[in-house]
Protein backbone atom coordinates (compact mmCIF):
# COMPACT_ATOMS: atom_id res chain seq x y z
CA UNK A 1 0.00 0.00 0.00
CA UNK A 2 1.23 3.45 -0.86
CA UNK A 3 0.32 6.88 0.34
CA UNK A 4 0.54 9.13 -2.69
CA UNK A 5 1.50 12.73 -2.11
CA UNK A 6 0.96 15.12 -4.96
CA UNK A 7 2.59 18.36 -4.00
CA UNK A 8 1.97 21.57 -5.93
CA UNK A 9 2.45 20.10 -9.36
CA UNK A 10 2.42 22.39 -12.38
CA UNK A 11 2.45 21.53 -16.05
CA UNK A 12 2.02 23.81 -19.05
CA UNK A 13 1.97 23.06 -22.76
CA UNK A 14 3.07 26.30 -24.35
CA UNK A 15 0.71 28.98 -23.10
CA UNK A 16 -1.86 26.43 -21.93
CA UNK A 17 -1.66 25.50 -18.28
CA UNK A 18 -2.93 21.96 -17.87
CA UNK A 19 -2.26 21.59 -14.14
CA UNK A 20 -1.67 24.55 -11.89
CA UNK A 21 -0.39 24.17 -8.34
CA UNK A 22 -2.37 21.01 -7.71
CA UNK A 23 -1.85 19.25 -4.39
CA UNK A 24 -3.59 16.31 -2.85
CA UNK A 25 -2.70 13.46 -0.53
CA UNK A 26 -4.17 10.05 -1.24
CA UNK A 27 -4.04 7.84 1.83
CA UNK A 28 -2.95 4.25 1.40
CA UNK A 29 -5.73 1.78 0.82
CA UNK A 30 -8.38 4.29 -0.21
CA UNK A 31 -10.46 4.54 -3.35
CA UNK A 32 -9.88 8.03 -4.61
CA UNK A 33 -12.02 9.57 -7.34
CA UNK A 34 -10.68 12.41 -9.43
CA UNK A 35 -13.44 14.42 -11.02
CA UNK A 36 -13.43 17.30 -13.39
CA UNK A 37 -14.86 18.49 -16.66
CA UNK A 38 -13.06 17.78 -19.94
CA UNK A 39 -9.71 19.54 -20.00
CA UNK A 40 -9.62 19.96 -16.23
CA UNK A 41 -6.19 18.30 -16.05
CA UNK A 42 -7.09 14.83 -14.74
CA UNK A 43 -5.14 12.87 -17.37
CA UNK A 44 -2.17 15.23 -17.04
CA UNK A 45 -2.25 14.63 -13.29
CA UNK A 46 -2.23 10.87 -13.83
CA UNK A 47 0.67 11.19 -16.24
CA UNK A 48 2.49 13.33 -13.68
CA UNK A 49 1.89 10.66 -11.06
CA UNK A 50 3.54 8.12 -13.37
CA UNK A 51 6.45 10.27 -14.50
CA UNK A 52 5.21 10.19 -18.08
CA UNK A 53 5.61 13.95 -18.36
CA UNK A 54 8.22 16.35 -17.08
CA UNK A 55 6.70 18.67 -14.52
CA UNK A 56 7.30 22.41 -14.51
CA UNK A 57 7.16 22.27 -10.74
CA UNK A 58 6.06 20.24 -7.76
CA UNK A 59 6.55 16.59 -7.01
CA UNK A 60 4.79 13.26 -6.63
CA UNK A 61 5.85 10.88 -3.89
CA UNK A 62 4.91 7.35 -3.02
CA UNK A 63 5.25 6.69 0.70
CA UNK A 64 7.39 9.79 0.82
CA UNK A 65 9.77 8.57 -1.88
CA UNK A 66 10.05 9.86 -5.41
CA UNK A 67 8.97 7.66 -8.29
CA UNK A 68 11.76 5.35 -9.48
CA UNK A 69 11.54 2.57 -12.09
CA UNK A 70 11.20 -0.08 -9.39
CA UNK A 71 8.06 1.68 -8.12
CA UNK A 72 6.25 0.56 -11.28
CA UNK A 73 6.37 -2.98 -9.96
CA UNK A 74 3.73 -1.76 -7.48
CA UNK A 75 1.69 0.52 -9.78
CA UNK A 76 -0.73 -0.55 -12.48
CA UNK A 77 -2.07 2.03 -14.89
CA UNK A 78 -5.02 2.03 -17.25
CA UNK A 79 -4.94 5.04 -19.59
CA UNK A 80 -8.13 6.62 -20.89
CA UNK A 81 -7.51 5.49 -24.47
CA UNK A 82 -6.24 2.15 -25.70
CA UNK A 83 -2.48 1.85 -25.71
CA UNK A 84 -2.53 -1.80 -26.66
CA UNK A 85 -0.73 -2.91 -29.81
CA UNK A 86 -3.28 -3.40 -32.57
CA UNK A 87 -1.25 -6.07 -34.36
CA UNK A 88 -0.79 -8.23 -31.26
CA UNK A 89 -3.25 -10.73 -29.85
CA UNK A 90 -4.64 -10.39 -26.34
CA UNK A 91 -2.68 -13.50 -25.36
CA UNK A 92 0.51 -11.83 -26.54
CA UNK A 93 -0.35 -8.86 -24.33
CA UNK A 94 -0.62 -11.28 -21.42
CA UNK A 95 2.85 -12.64 -22.26
CA UNK A 96 4.15 -9.08 -22.58
CA UNK A 97 2.81 -8.12 -19.15
CA UNK A 98 4.13 -11.32 -17.61
CA UNK A 99 7.59 -10.65 -19.03
CA UNK A 100 7.66 -7.18 -17.44
CA UNK A 101 6.05 -7.62 -14.02
CA UNK A 102 6.84 -10.19 -11.37
CA UNK A 103 3.49 -10.00 -9.63
CA UNK A 104 1.37 -10.56 -12.73
CA UNK A 105 -0.96 -13.56 -12.55
CA UNK A 106 -1.76 -14.69 -16.13
CA UNK A 107 -4.46 -17.08 -14.96
CA UNK A 108 -6.28 -14.26 -13.25
CA UNK A 109 -6.02 -12.11 -16.38
CA UNK A 110 -7.54 -14.91 -18.45
CA UNK A 111 -10.36 -15.36 -15.95
CA UNK A 112 -11.12 -11.63 -15.99
CA UNK A 113 -11.05 -11.56 -19.77
CA UNK A 114 -13.52 -14.42 -19.83
CA UNK A 115 -15.78 -12.45 -17.50
CA UNK A 116 -15.55 -9.49 -19.88
CA UNK A 117 -16.25 -11.78 -22.86
CA UNK A 118 -12.94 -10.94 -24.49
CA UNK A 119 -11.48 -13.71 -26.65
CA UNK A 120 -7.72 -13.79 -25.87
CA UNK A 121 -6.97 -15.26 -29.29
CA UNK A 122 -8.18 -12.14 -31.04
CA UNK A 123 -5.92 -9.39 -32.25
CA UNK A 124 -6.52 -6.05 -30.56
CA UNK A 125 -7.56 -4.47 -33.85
CA UNK A 126 -10.51 -6.88 -33.85
CA UNK A 127 -11.73 -5.69 -30.44
CA UNK A 128 -14.30 -2.97 -29.81
CA UNK A 129 -13.38 0.12 -27.78
CA UNK A 130 -15.06 -1.33 -24.70
CA UNK A 131 -13.27 -4.65 -25.08
CA UNK A 132 -9.94 -2.86 -25.33
CA UNK A 133 -10.70 -0.98 -22.13
CA UNK A 134 -11.75 -4.25 -20.50
CA UNK A 135 -8.51 -5.88 -21.64
CA UNK A 136 -6.43 -3.08 -20.15
CA UNK A 137 -8.37 -3.28 -16.89
CA UNK A 138 -7.94 -7.08 -16.75
CA UNK A 139 -4.19 -6.80 -17.36
CA UNK A 140 -3.88 -4.10 -14.70
CA UNK A 141 -5.94 -5.90 -12.06
CA UNK A 142 -4.11 -9.19 -12.66
CA UNK A 143 -0.88 -7.49 -11.72
CA UNK A 144 -2.04 -7.47 -8.10
CA UNK A 145 -0.38 -4.09 -7.71
CA UNK A 146 -0.44 -1.97 -4.56
CA UNK A 147 -1.71 1.02 -6.48
CA UNK A 148 -4.12 1.11 -9.39
CA UNK A 149 -4.38 4.29 -11.41
CA UNK A 150 -7.35 4.13 -13.71
CA UNK A 151 -8.18 6.91 -16.13
CA UNK A 152 -11.81 6.49 -17.23
CA UNK A 153 -11.78 2.72 -16.65
CA UNK A 154 -15.40 2.31 -17.69
CA UNK A 155 -15.13 4.28 -20.90
CA UNK A 156 -16.87 2.47 -23.75
CA UNK A 157 -18.09 -0.39 -21.57
CA UNK A 158 -21.68 -1.53 -21.49
CA UNK A 159 -23.54 -1.09 -18.16
CA UNK A 160 -22.92 -4.71 -17.15
CA UNK A 161 -19.18 -4.44 -17.65
CA UNK A 162 -19.13 -0.98 -16.07
CA UNK A 163 -20.62 -2.53 -12.95
CA UNK A 164 -18.08 -5.35 -13.22
CA UNK A 165 -15.18 -2.88 -13.31
CA UNK A 166 -16.59 -1.06 -10.29
CA UNK A 167 -16.85 -4.33 -8.41
CA UNK A 168 -13.26 -5.14 -9.35
CA UNK A 169 -12.15 -1.79 -7.97
CA UNK A 170 -14.03 -2.40 -4.75
CA UNK A 171 -12.53 -5.91 -4.49
CA UNK A 172 -9.05 -4.55 -5.10
CA UNK A 173 -9.66 -1.96 -2.42
CA UNK A 174 -10.76 -4.69 -0.04
CA UNK A 175 -7.43 -6.42 -0.79
CA UNK A 176 -5.74 -3.26 0.44
CA UNK A 177 -4.82 -1.62 -2.84
CA UNK A 178 -4.89 2.14 -3.26
CA UNK A 179 -7.10 3.04 -6.18
CA UNK A 180 -7.09 6.35 -7.96
CA UNK A 181 -9.56 6.72 -10.77
CA UNK A 182 -11.39 9.25 -12.84
CA UNK A 183 -14.77 9.01 -14.43
CA UNK A 184 -17.42 11.21 -15.92
CA UNK A 185 -20.01 8.86 -14.46
CA UNK A 186 -20.51 10.56 -11.13
CA UNK A 187 -22.83 7.86 -9.92
CA UNK A 188 -19.99 5.38 -10.26
CA UNK A 189 -17.62 7.64 -8.39
CA UNK A 190 -20.18 8.10 -5.63
CA UNK A 191 -20.59 4.35 -5.40
CA UNK A 192 -16.92 3.41 -5.36
CA UNK A 193 -14.90 6.35 -4.03
CA UNK A 194 -14.23 7.11 -0.41
CA UNK A 195 -12.50 10.37 -1.17
CA UNK A 196 -12.75 12.66 -4.14
CA UNK A 197 -11.01 15.65 -5.57
CA UNK A 198 -12.60 17.91 -8.12
CA UNK A 199 -10.30 19.59 -10.60
CA UNK A 200 -11.24 22.61 -12.60
CA UNK A 201 -8.98 24.31 -15.13
CA UNK A 202 -5.94 22.58 -13.67
CA UNK A 203 -6.62 23.59 -10.10
CA UNK A 204 -8.03 21.78 -7.13
CA UNK A 205 -11.61 22.94 -6.71
CA UNK A 206 -12.73 20.63 -3.93
CA UNK A 207 -11.34 17.72 -1.97
CA UNK A 208 -12.48 15.49 0.85
CA UNK A 209 -14.32 12.33 1.75
CA UNK A 210 -17.60 11.82 -0.03
CA UNK A 211 -19.44 11.69 3.28
CA UNK A 212 -17.87 14.91 4.56
CA UNK A 213 -18.64 16.73 1.35
CA UNK A 214 -22.23 15.60 1.36
CA UNK A 215 -22.84 15.85 5.10
CA UNK A 216 -24.89 18.88 6.07
CA UNK A 217 -24.80 20.44 2.64
CA UNK A 218 -28.20 21.32 1.40
CA UNK A 219 -29.75 23.45 -1.27
CA UNK A 220 -32.56 25.76 -0.22
CA UNK A 221 -34.57 26.65 -3.30
CA UNK A 222 -37.44 29.11 -3.71
CA UNK A 223 -39.37 30.78 -6.53
CA UNK A 224 -39.99 34.53 -6.33
CA UNK A 225 -42.75 36.39 -8.13
CA UNK A 226 -40.19 38.56 -9.92
CA UNK A 227 -36.56 38.11 -10.93
CA UNK A 228 -35.32 41.35 -9.38
CA UNK A 229 -35.54 40.45 -5.74
CA UNK A 230 -32.48 41.66 -3.84
CA UNK A 231 -30.16 38.96 -2.47
CA UNK A 232 -27.84 41.44 -0.82
CA UNK A 233 -28.58 40.18 2.67
CA UNK A 234 -27.17 36.71 1.80
CA UNK A 235 -23.91 37.85 0.26
CA UNK A 236 -22.01 38.16 3.49
CA UNK A 237 -23.55 35.27 5.38
CA UNK A 238 -20.69 32.91 6.16
CA UNK A 239 -23.02 29.93 6.56
CA UNK A 240 -23.75 30.06 2.86
CA UNK A 241 -21.32 28.51 0.39
CA UNK A 242 -22.99 29.96 -2.61
CA UNK A 243 -25.99 31.90 -3.85
CA UNK A 244 -27.39 31.31 -7.35
CA UNK A 245 -30.16 33.10 -9.11
CA UNK A 246 -31.69 31.66 -12.26
CA UNK A 247 -34.48 34.01 -13.28
CA UNK A 248 -37.08 33.88 -10.55
CA UNK A 249 -35.49 30.84 -8.91
CA UNK A 250 -33.03 31.40 -6.07
CA UNK A 251 -30.83 28.63 -4.70
CA UNK A 252 -28.80 28.84 -1.54
CA UNK A 253 -26.07 26.30 -0.89
CA UNK A 254 -25.60 25.99 2.84
CA UNK A 255 -23.70 23.85 5.30
CA UNK A 256 -26.05 24.63 8.21
CA UNK A 257 -29.38 26.08 9.23
CA UNK A 258 -31.15 25.10 6.04
CA UNK A 259 -34.53 25.38 7.76
CA UNK A 260 -33.79 28.95 8.88
CA UNK A 261 -32.80 29.95 5.34
CA UNK A 262 -35.98 28.35 3.97
CA UNK A 263 -38.00 30.45 6.41
CA UNK A 264 -36.12 33.59 5.32
CA UNK A 265 -36.87 32.90 1.66
CA UNK A 266 -40.55 32.41 2.51
CA UNK A 267 -40.46 35.63 4.47
CA UNK A 268 -39.08 37.42 1.39
CA UNK A 269 -42.07 36.22 -0.62
CA UNK A 270 -40.75 33.07 -2.23
CA UNK A 271 -43.15 30.26 -2.95
CA UNK A 272 -42.50 26.55 -3.36
CA UNK A 273 -39.55 26.71 -0.98
CA UNK A 274 -37.88 23.34 -0.52
CA UNK A 275 -34.75 21.89 1.01
CA UNK A 276 -32.82 19.45 -1.19
CA UNK A 277 -30.05 17.09 -0.04
CA UNK A 278 -26.91 17.41 -2.16
CA UNK A 279 -25.64 14.44 -4.09
CA UNK A 280 -22.15 14.15 -5.52
CA UNK A 281 -23.30 15.40 -8.88
CA UNK A 282 -24.53 18.63 -7.26
CA UNK A 283 -21.27 18.99 -5.38
CA UNK A 284 -19.32 18.46 -8.58
CA UNK A 285 -21.42 20.90 -10.57
CA UNK A 286 -21.15 23.56 -7.88
CA UNK A 287 -17.38 23.04 -7.74
CA UNK A 288 -16.95 23.62 -11.45
CA UNK A 289 -19.09 26.74 -11.42
CA UNK A 290 -18.38 28.42 -14.75
CA UNK A 291 -20.51 25.92 -16.63
CA UNK A 292 -23.45 26.82 -14.39
CA UNK A 293 -23.36 30.56 -14.64
CA UNK A 294 -26.85 30.95 -15.89
CA UNK A 295 -27.56 33.63 -13.35
CA UNK A 296 -25.91 35.69 -10.62
CA UNK A 297 -23.45 33.50 -8.84
CA UNK A 298 -21.99 34.73 -5.61
CA UNK A 299 -19.40 32.25 -4.51
CA UNK A 300 -18.35 32.07 -0.91
CA UNK A 301 -21.24 34.28 -0.04
Amino acid sequence: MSTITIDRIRKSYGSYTAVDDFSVEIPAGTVFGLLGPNGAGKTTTFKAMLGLIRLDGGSVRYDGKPLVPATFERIAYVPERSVLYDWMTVTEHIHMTRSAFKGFVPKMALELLTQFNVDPRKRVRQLSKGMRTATMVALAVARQADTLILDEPTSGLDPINQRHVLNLMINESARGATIVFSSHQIGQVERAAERIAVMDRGKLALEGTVDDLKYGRKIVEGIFPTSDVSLEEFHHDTRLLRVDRDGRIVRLLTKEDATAFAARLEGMGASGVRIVDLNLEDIFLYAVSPALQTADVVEGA
Partner: protein
Amino acid sequence: MVYVQWLRVRNVLKFTGIIFGCIFALALVLHFALARFGSYDAMINGISLDPGTTTQHVLLFDGTKRTILDNAKDHTHVVIDDHGYAGKQVTITEPSSRQRATHEHVTMGSVSVISSRNGKTATTVIDTNAPTDFRIYIAFAVTVAFILATILGAPFARENDGHLEIALTKPIARVPLALQMMAVDAIGIIGGFVLAIVAFIAINTIFQVPHIVVGGDSLLVFASGMVLTLAWYACLAAASASLRRGYGAVLGFAWPVALAVALLALLPLGGSLLGEALHGIFRVLAFFDPLSYASFSAGNVSPDTQTLSAGATIATRLPYTTILLILYTALAVIQWRRVEA
Protein backbone atom coordinates in the same frame (compact mmCIF):
# COMPACT_ATOMS: atom_id res chain seq x y z
CA MET B 1 10.78 -6.17 -20.81
CA VAL B 2 11.23 -6.10 -24.56
CA TYR B 3 8.72 -8.75 -25.52
CA VAL B 4 7.15 -6.50 -28.17
CA GLN B 5 10.53 -6.02 -29.86
CA TRP B 6 11.05 -9.77 -29.92
CA LEU B 7 7.65 -10.18 -31.55
CA ARG B 8 8.48 -7.54 -34.16
CA VAL B 9 11.83 -9.17 -34.90
CA ARG B 10 10.21 -12.59 -35.09
CA ASN B 11 7.61 -11.32 -37.54
CA VAL B 12 10.21 -9.59 -39.72
CA LEU B 13 12.43 -12.67 -39.80
CA LYS B 14 9.43 -14.90 -40.49
CA PHE B 15 8.46 -12.69 -43.40
CA THR B 16 12.04 -12.67 -44.69
CA GLY B 17 12.18 -16.46 -44.38
CA ILE B 18 8.95 -16.79 -46.35
CA ILE B 19 10.34 -14.58 -49.14
CA PHE B 20 13.55 -16.61 -49.28
CA GLY B 21 11.47 -19.79 -49.25
CA CYS B 22 9.50 -18.53 -52.24
CA ILE B 23 12.69 -17.59 -54.10
CA PHE B 24 14.15 -21.00 -53.28
CA ALA B 25 11.03 -22.75 -54.59
CA LEU B 26 11.04 -20.60 -57.70
CA ALA B 27 14.72 -21.38 -58.29
CA LEU B 28 13.96 -25.07 -57.89
CA VAL B 29 11.17 -24.90 -60.44
CA LEU B 30 13.38 -22.94 -62.83
CA HIS B 31 16.19 -25.41 -62.40
CA PHE B 32 14.06 -28.40 -63.33
CA ALA B 33 12.08 -26.58 -66.00
CA LEU B 34 15.01 -25.11 -67.86
CA ALA B 35 17.83 -27.54 -67.17
CA ARG B 36 17.29 -29.67 -70.23
CA PHE B 37 17.18 -26.68 -72.59
CA GLY B 38 20.22 -24.59 -72.00
CA SER B 39 22.71 -26.41 -69.83
CA TYR B 40 26.05 -27.74 -70.93
CA ASP B 41 24.79 -31.21 -69.91
CA ALA B 42 22.12 -30.87 -72.61
CA MET B 43 24.73 -29.83 -75.13
CA ILE B 44 27.00 -32.74 -74.22
CA ASN B 45 24.06 -35.12 -74.40
CA GLY B 46 23.38 -33.79 -77.89
CA ILE B 47 26.94 -34.47 -78.96
CA SER B 48 27.00 -37.94 -77.39
CA LEU B 49 23.80 -38.94 -79.16
CA ASP B 50 25.25 -38.08 -82.56
CA PRO B 51 25.86 -41.38 -84.47
CA GLY B 52 29.41 -40.29 -85.39
CA THR B 53 30.49 -39.72 -81.80
CA THR B 54 32.70 -42.16 -79.92
CA THR B 55 32.62 -42.19 -76.15
CA GLN B 56 35.42 -43.28 -73.87
CA HIS B 57 35.35 -43.47 -70.04
CA VAL B 58 38.54 -43.28 -68.00
CA LEU B 59 39.04 -43.31 -64.23
CA LEU B 60 42.02 -41.13 -63.36
CA PHE B 61 44.34 -41.91 -60.47
CA ASP B 62 42.85 -39.10 -58.32
CA GLY B 63 39.32 -40.54 -58.66
CA THR B 64 38.25 -38.18 -61.39
CA LYS B 65 35.87 -39.74 -63.89
CA ARG B 66 36.93 -38.61 -67.33
CA THR B 67 34.61 -38.92 -70.28
CA ILE B 68 35.96 -38.22 -73.74
CA LEU B 69 33.58 -37.60 -76.63
CA ASP B 70 35.04 -37.43 -80.09
CA ASN B 71 33.25 -36.73 -83.33
CA ALA B 72 35.72 -36.85 -86.22
CA LYS B 73 33.10 -35.85 -88.77
CA ASP B 74 32.19 -32.62 -86.95
CA HIS B 75 35.74 -32.06 -85.66
CA THR B 76 34.30 -31.85 -82.17
CA HIS B 77 36.20 -33.08 -79.13
CA VAL B 78 34.82 -32.95 -75.59
CA VAL B 79 36.65 -33.85 -72.37
CA ILE B 80 34.56 -34.02 -69.21
CA ASP B 81 36.34 -34.37 -65.88
CA ASP B 82 33.86 -35.21 -63.14
CA HIS B 83 35.42 -34.40 -59.74
CA GLY B 84 32.31 -35.43 -57.80
CA TYR B 85 31.46 -32.84 -55.16
CA ALA B 86 34.23 -30.66 -56.48
CA GLY B 87 32.26 -30.13 -59.69
CA LYS B 88 33.00 -30.76 -63.32
CA GLN B 89 35.37 -29.34 -65.83
CA VAL B 90 34.28 -29.58 -69.45
CA THR B 91 36.57 -28.69 -72.32
CA ILE B 92 34.90 -28.48 -75.73
CA THR B 93 36.96 -28.06 -78.85
CA GLU B 94 34.98 -27.42 -82.04
CA PRO B 95 35.28 -25.64 -85.37
CA SER B 96 34.81 -21.89 -85.41
CA SER B 97 33.29 -19.89 -88.21
CA ARG B 98 34.99 -16.71 -87.14
CA GLN B 99 38.63 -16.20 -87.93
CA ARG B 100 39.31 -13.41 -85.43
CA ALA B 101 41.03 -14.52 -82.25
CA THR B 102 38.95 -13.83 -79.12
CA HIS B 103 39.10 -14.64 -75.46
CA GLU B 104 36.13 -14.27 -73.10
CA HIS B 105 35.72 -15.16 -69.47
CA VAL B 106 32.29 -15.17 -67.82
CA THR B 107 31.62 -16.16 -64.22
CA MET B 108 28.22 -16.78 -62.67
CA GLY B 109 28.46 -17.94 -59.11
CA SER B 110 30.65 -21.00 -59.15
CA VAL B 111 30.30 -21.54 -62.89
CA SER B 112 33.16 -20.16 -64.94
CA VAL B 113 33.09 -20.22 -68.75
CA ILE B 114 36.21 -19.39 -70.73
CA SER B 115 35.73 -19.15 -74.50
CA SER B 116 38.62 -18.65 -76.85
CA ARG B 117 38.92 -18.76 -80.60
CA ASN B 118 42.10 -19.16 -82.50
CA GLY B 119 42.08 -19.71 -86.21
CA LYS B 120 39.39 -22.20 -87.10
CA THR B 121 39.15 -23.73 -83.66
CA ALA B 122 37.02 -22.62 -80.73
CA THR B 123 37.70 -23.89 -77.24
CA THR B 124 35.24 -23.58 -74.41
CA VAL B 125 36.23 -24.50 -70.87
CA ILE B 126 33.37 -24.79 -68.42
CA ASP B 127 34.34 -25.11 -64.79
CA THR B 128 31.45 -25.73 -62.41
CA ASN B 129 33.66 -25.43 -59.40
CA ALA B 130 35.10 -21.99 -59.94
CA PRO B 131 35.85 -20.20 -56.73
CA THR B 132 33.24 -17.73 -55.50
CA ASP B 133 34.42 -14.92 -53.31
CA PHE B 134 32.56 -15.01 -49.97
CA ARG B 135 32.33 -11.21 -50.15
CA ILE B 136 29.67 -11.59 -52.83
CA TYR B 137 27.47 -13.37 -50.30
CA ILE B 138 28.24 -10.74 -47.69
CA ALA B 139 27.30 -7.95 -50.11
CA PHE B 140 23.99 -9.68 -50.77
CA ALA B 141 23.42 -10.22 -47.05
CA VAL B 142 24.23 -6.58 -46.28
CA THR B 143 21.62 -5.48 -48.81
CA VAL B 144 19.01 -7.70 -47.19
CA ALA B 145 20.07 -6.60 -43.70
CA PHE B 146 19.81 -2.93 -44.75
CA ILE B 147 16.21 -3.55 -45.78
CA LEU B 148 15.49 -5.26 -42.45
CA ALA B 149 17.23 -2.43 -40.60
CA THR B 150 14.97 0.02 -42.41
CA ILE B 151 11.86 -1.96 -41.48
CA LEU B 152 12.92 -2.13 -37.82
CA GLY B 153 14.48 1.33 -37.95
CA ALA B 154 12.04 3.33 -35.84
CA PRO B 155 11.86 1.41 -32.56
CA PHE B 156 11.19 4.45 -30.41
CA ALA B 157 8.81 6.25 -32.75
CA ARG B 158 6.66 3.11 -32.83
CA GLU B 159 6.36 3.30 -29.04
CA ASN B 160 5.78 7.05 -29.14
CA ASP B 161 2.87 6.43 -31.47
CA GLY B 162 0.34 5.55 -28.78
CA HIS B 163 2.17 3.00 -26.64
CA LEU B 164 4.39 5.08 -24.35
CA GLU B 165 2.11 4.41 -21.41
CA ILE B 166 3.07 0.75 -21.70
CA ALA B 167 6.73 1.25 -22.50
CA LEU B 168 7.42 3.83 -19.82
CA THR B 169 5.55 2.23 -16.92
CA LYS B 170 7.76 -0.83 -16.81
CA PRO B 171 10.02 -1.29 -13.81
CA ILE B 172 13.13 -0.37 -15.75
CA ALA B 173 14.84 2.94 -16.41
CA ARG B 174 14.46 4.43 -19.86
CA VAL B 175 18.09 4.18 -20.95
CA PRO B 176 18.53 0.45 -20.27
CA LEU B 177 15.10 -0.16 -21.78
CA ALA B 178 16.06 1.77 -24.92
CA LEU B 179 19.35 -0.11 -25.20
CA GLN B 180 17.57 -3.44 -24.74
CA MET B 181 15.10 -2.53 -27.47
CA MET B 182 17.91 -1.65 -29.86
CA ALA B 183 19.83 -4.77 -28.91
CA VAL B 184 16.86 -6.99 -29.78
CA ASP B 185 16.50 -5.28 -33.15
CA ALA B 186 20.25 -5.67 -33.69
CA ILE B 187 19.95 -9.39 -33.03
CA GLY B 188 17.13 -9.51 -35.58
CA ILE B 189 19.19 -7.65 -38.16
CA ILE B 190 22.19 -9.90 -37.62
CA GLY B 191 19.84 -12.89 -37.81
CA GLY B 192 18.55 -11.59 -41.14
CA PHE B 193 22.11 -11.07 -42.29
CA VAL B 194 23.03 -14.69 -41.53
CA LEU B 195 19.71 -15.93 -42.95
CA ALA B 196 20.42 -14.09 -46.21
CA ILE B 197 23.87 -15.70 -46.54
CA VAL B 198 22.42 -19.16 -45.88
CA ALA B 199 19.55 -18.56 -48.30
CA PHE B 200 21.86 -17.27 -51.01
CA ILE B 201 24.13 -20.30 -50.68
CA ALA B 202 21.09 -22.63 -50.68
CA ILE B 203 19.63 -21.03 -53.79
CA ASN B 204 23.03 -21.15 -55.45
CA THR B 205 23.33 -24.82 -54.56
CA ILE B 206 20.18 -25.64 -56.52
CA PHE B 207 22.09 -24.84 -59.67
CA GLN B 208 25.57 -25.81 -58.55
CA VAL B 209 27.28 -26.51 -55.26
CA PRO B 210 29.25 -23.31 -54.80
CA HIS B 211 32.96 -23.35 -54.28
CA ILE B 212 33.18 -20.57 -51.75
CA VAL B 213 36.55 -19.01 -51.17
CA VAL B 214 36.90 -17.31 -47.84
CA GLY B 215 39.70 -14.83 -48.18
CA GLY B 216 41.94 -13.55 -45.45
CA ASP B 217 39.87 -10.39 -45.06
CA SER B 218 36.48 -12.17 -45.13
CA LEU B 219 36.03 -11.91 -41.37
CA LEU B 220 36.81 -8.21 -41.55
CA VAL B 221 34.35 -7.76 -44.41
CA PHE B 222 31.74 -9.74 -42.46
CA ALA B 223 32.22 -7.57 -39.38
CA SER B 224 32.27 -4.43 -41.47
CA GLY B 225 29.00 -5.39 -43.16
CA MET B 226 27.30 -6.01 -39.83
CA VAL B 227 28.54 -2.82 -38.20
CA LEU B 228 27.57 -0.84 -41.29
CA THR B 229 24.04 -2.24 -41.19
CA LEU B 230 23.70 -1.57 -37.48
CA ALA B 231 24.98 1.98 -37.99
CA TRP B 232 22.25 2.47 -40.60
CA TYR B 233 19.65 1.12 -38.16
CA ALA B 234 20.93 3.42 -35.40
CA CYS B 235 20.89 6.36 -37.80
CA LEU B 236 17.21 5.73 -38.59
CA ALA B 237 16.42 5.24 -34.90
CA ALA B 238 18.07 8.57 -34.08
CA ALA B 239 16.24 10.35 -36.91
CA SER B 240 12.86 9.13 -35.67
CA ALA B 241 13.34 8.81 -31.89
CA SER B 242 11.32 11.87 -30.94
CA LEU B 243 8.60 11.50 -33.58
CA ARG B 244 5.11 10.34 -32.73
CA ARG B 245 3.85 9.98 -36.25
CA GLY B 246 5.36 10.38 -39.66
CA TYR B 247 8.26 8.06 -38.93
CA GLY B 248 7.26 6.11 -42.03
CA ALA B 249 8.28 9.10 -44.12
CA VAL B 250 11.67 9.17 -42.39
CA LEU B 251 12.19 5.49 -43.18
CA GLY B 252 10.95 5.94 -46.74
CA PHE B 253 13.05 8.98 -47.59
CA ALA B 254 16.14 7.77 -45.76
CA TRP B 255 17.32 5.62 -48.66
CA PRO B 256 17.09 8.18 -51.47
CA VAL B 257 18.55 10.92 -49.27
CA ALA B 258 21.42 8.77 -48.02
CA LEU B 259 22.16 7.49 -51.53
CA ALA B 260 22.08 11.01 -52.93
CA VAL B 261 24.51 12.23 -50.28
CA ALA B 262 26.83 9.29 -50.92
CA LEU B 263 26.78 9.84 -54.69
CA LEU B 264 27.07 13.62 -54.61
CA ALA B 265 30.05 13.29 -52.30
CA LEU B 266 31.79 11.17 -54.92
CA LEU B 267 30.80 13.06 -58.05
CA PRO B 268 32.44 16.37 -58.92
CA LEU B 269 29.77 19.06 -59.23
CA GLY B 270 31.46 21.22 -61.84
CA GLY B 271 34.34 23.61 -61.57
CA SER B 272 32.31 26.58 -60.34
CA LEU B 273 32.63 27.95 -56.86
CA LEU B 274 29.07 26.82 -56.05
CA GLY B 275 29.79 23.33 -57.36
CA GLU B 276 32.96 23.13 -55.31
CA ALA B 277 31.12 24.35 -52.23
CA LEU B 278 28.29 21.84 -52.67
CA HIS B 279 30.77 19.06 -53.28
CA GLY B 280 32.54 20.02 -50.08
CA ILE B 281 29.28 20.02 -48.14
CA PHE B 282 28.30 16.61 -49.43
CA ARG B 283 31.74 15.23 -48.67
CA VAL B 284 31.28 16.28 -45.05
CA LEU B 285 27.69 15.02 -44.94
CA ALA B 286 28.85 11.71 -46.35
CA PHE B 287 30.97 11.25 -43.28
CA PHE B 288 27.73 10.88 -41.29
CA ASP B 289 25.96 8.81 -43.91
CA PRO B 290 26.31 5.06 -43.30
CA LEU B 291 25.50 4.30 -46.94
CA SER B 292 28.67 6.15 -47.95
CA TYR B 293 30.67 3.37 -46.36
CA ALA B 294 28.89 0.61 -48.28
CA SER B 295 31.82 -0.65 -50.29
CA PHE B 296 33.71 -3.88 -49.95
CA SER B 297 36.66 -2.78 -51.92
CA ALA B 298 39.79 -3.90 -50.17
CA GLY B 299 42.00 -1.82 -52.38
CA ASN B 300 42.89 1.81 -52.28
CA VAL B 301 40.50 4.45 -53.47
CA SER B 302 41.80 7.15 -55.75
CA PRO B 303 42.43 10.37 -53.85
CA ASP B 304 40.31 12.17 -56.47
CA THR B 305 37.19 10.25 -55.59
CA GLN B 306 37.97 9.50 -52.00
CA THR B 307 35.62 11.06 -49.49
CA LEU B 308 36.01 11.32 -45.77
CA SER B 309 33.73 8.32 -45.42
CA ALA B 310 35.10 6.23 -48.22
CA GLY B 311 38.40 5.74 -46.48
CA ALA B 312 40.99 3.70 -48.27
CA THR B 313 40.11 0.20 -47.09
CA ILE B 314 37.54 -1.72 -45.14
CA ALA B 315 39.96 -1.83 -42.26
CA THR B 316 40.05 1.95 -42.11
CA ARG B 317 36.30 2.34 -42.70
CA LEU B 318 35.34 -0.06 -39.91
CA PRO B 319 36.34 2.33 -37.11
CA TYR B 320 34.36 5.13 -38.80
CA THR B 321 31.21 3.02 -38.99
CA THR B 322 31.70 1.85 -35.42
CA ILE B 323 31.89 5.48 -34.29
CA LEU B 324 28.73 6.24 -36.27
CA LEU B 325 26.96 3.28 -34.65
CA ILE B 326 27.85 4.54 -31.17
CA LEU B 327 27.04 8.15 -32.03
CA TYR B 328 23.62 7.41 -33.51
CA THR B 329 22.74 4.98 -30.72
CA ALA B 330 23.56 7.65 -28.16
CA LEU B 331 21.57 10.27 -30.08
CA ALA B 332 18.53 7.99 -30.30
CA VAL B 333 18.62 7.07 -26.61
CA ILE B 334 19.19 10.66 -25.45
CA GLN B 335 16.19 11.84 -27.47
CA TRP B 336 13.95 9.05 -26.23
CA ARG B 337 14.88 9.78 -22.63
CA ARG B 338 13.17 13.13 -23.00
CA VAL B 339 10.01 12.00 -24.76
CA GLU B 340 6.75 12.66 -22.90
CA ALA B 341 3.57 10.62 -23.12
